[in-house]
């Protein structure tokens, strides 16, 4: 019983790594234009179902890794800040989110991914690269639509208590 309640740290690490790879995988341009922020999605999942696994440190590290890894990011810690903010909001209300259905959660995920993009966009603007396309705001929608499937998949990597 104690074992089942342990935090799924290895799952967290592993899935975040996968998400990192998915996010920077070279894809055709049309596909990469709508590619949702997979790291943010995975971080949202773990913030809901295992908020104690890594605290805020894990999301921050994941974001930082994305900043370094993703040679397209404008400035270090850009994604780190955005993802930490998303994780913070999610962890604050994770109890309520757990009681929602996956479809209800998708709306929340859509909003969070929008927040994520907004922060990234804001920082890019501050740096001076505020080029934007409408596609940027399609990504959160795609992410929200994919959420139920992602959540089901990630649900298999750990035992829910």
């Amino acid at each position, binding site marked *: 019983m104690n074992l089942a309640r342990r935090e799924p740290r290895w799952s967290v690490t592993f899935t975040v790594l996968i998400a990192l790879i998915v996010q920077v995988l*070279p894809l055709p341009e049309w596909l990469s234009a709508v590619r949702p922020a997979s790291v943010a999605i995975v971080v949202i999942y773990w913030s809901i179902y295992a908020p104690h696994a890594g605290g805020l440190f894990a999301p921050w590290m994941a974001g930082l890794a994305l900043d370094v890894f993703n*040679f397209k990011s404008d400035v270090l810690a850009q994604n780190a800040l955005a993802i930490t903010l998303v994780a913070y909001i999610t962890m604050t209300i994770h109890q309520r989110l757990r009681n929602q259905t996956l479809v209800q959660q998708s709306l929340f995920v859509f909003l969070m991914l929008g927040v994520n993009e907004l922060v990234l966009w804001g920082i890019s603007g501050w740096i001076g690269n505020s080029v934007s396309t409408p596609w940027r705001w399609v990504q959160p929608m795609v992410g929200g639509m994919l959420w139920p499937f992602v959540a089901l998949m990630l649900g298999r990597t750990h035992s829910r208590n």
Partner: protein
Amino acid sequence: MAFLGSGSRVGGARGPAFGFRFFCYAVLSVILMFYDKKGGWLDTARYGLQAAIYPLQLAVNSPSAAWSWVRESFATREALQKEVDGLRAQLREQQLITMRQAALASENATLRALNHSFPDVIEKRLVGEIINAETSTFRQRLLVNRGGQSTVYKSQPVVTGEGVLGQVFRIGPFSSEVILITDSEHMVPVQVVRSGVRTIALGTGDSNSLDLPYVPQNYDVKEGDLLVTSGLGRVFPFGLPVAKVTKVTRDPTQSLAAIQAAPLARMDSGREVLFIWSRPNHPAAPATSEALNIPVTKPAPKPVPKPARKPAPVATPAATPAPTQPAETTAPAPAAPAPAAPATPAPETATPTQPAPAETPGDDGPEAPPPQPDTGGTR
């Protein structure tokens, strides 16, 4: 990430401490951003982080690498034969072009009243393989598998067989990020080979087009003109092919002509690039800031081991008037419009006879800062 130990368990999602911790991370992020933007010691940290993340980058590249390996392994004999034939034909062409190279070099030296000709300005080259690429409107960047360990340095020119590709933007120990000349944040100082007109080519975010917005109406630029690097700007040596002019629009109501050019190096395809090292003190080497009279405001930090830049064994002959100046040696400028007073503090170069219009609205004007002034950083 998840190895945090018991510390993280203490503060869950509850309590005022949680909000405070978020605040701490946010402040930390902003500090990191600030220093990363400013450049400095964080470059060193980034250098280390790049090394840590390199295996993952390779993992990301592995599917496409595996695919091309499979494709090559199963290439048919006919296809290979065809490729070999093509390469042979190409080699023959190149041999014809370079056949008179030695004779031309000595002829050039005679014309310039030098005792002997110079060796090639490119002292050393290194082949790198593209690991990842982004060619979007926002960014045109490549990730290449050579870095500080191979003595690649920041703002090093990167070329392909066809022409200039870009310059090194960021480096890690085993990899480097190359900003392409078509990136919308990149500018490269160029010169028209036929007429000697000098200007700046701006990236557009489109892989097949460069913009030349600073050319006055009456300057001699035509469709089909070859643009080469002008040697100004402290990054690229003089004379590397950059682009071909594809479109010149002269609107009489405007003071400047609208000129488009197509880069010669193919950005989207080809998996290999060349890093080049210029011979210091060579007339065609990139101009130094002293020669350009640009006050260096920031001594651009370089955490990287610099390439072994030994003084060239062939040191400059005494006959050279000013060794560090960029040589605008070509530029016969047959019908170039008489330039207005040369607006550049740029040295009027080693050849006093050069009538090329010193046309450099941006060469070091206020709007030209981008990659060059701080050794290739881009804003």
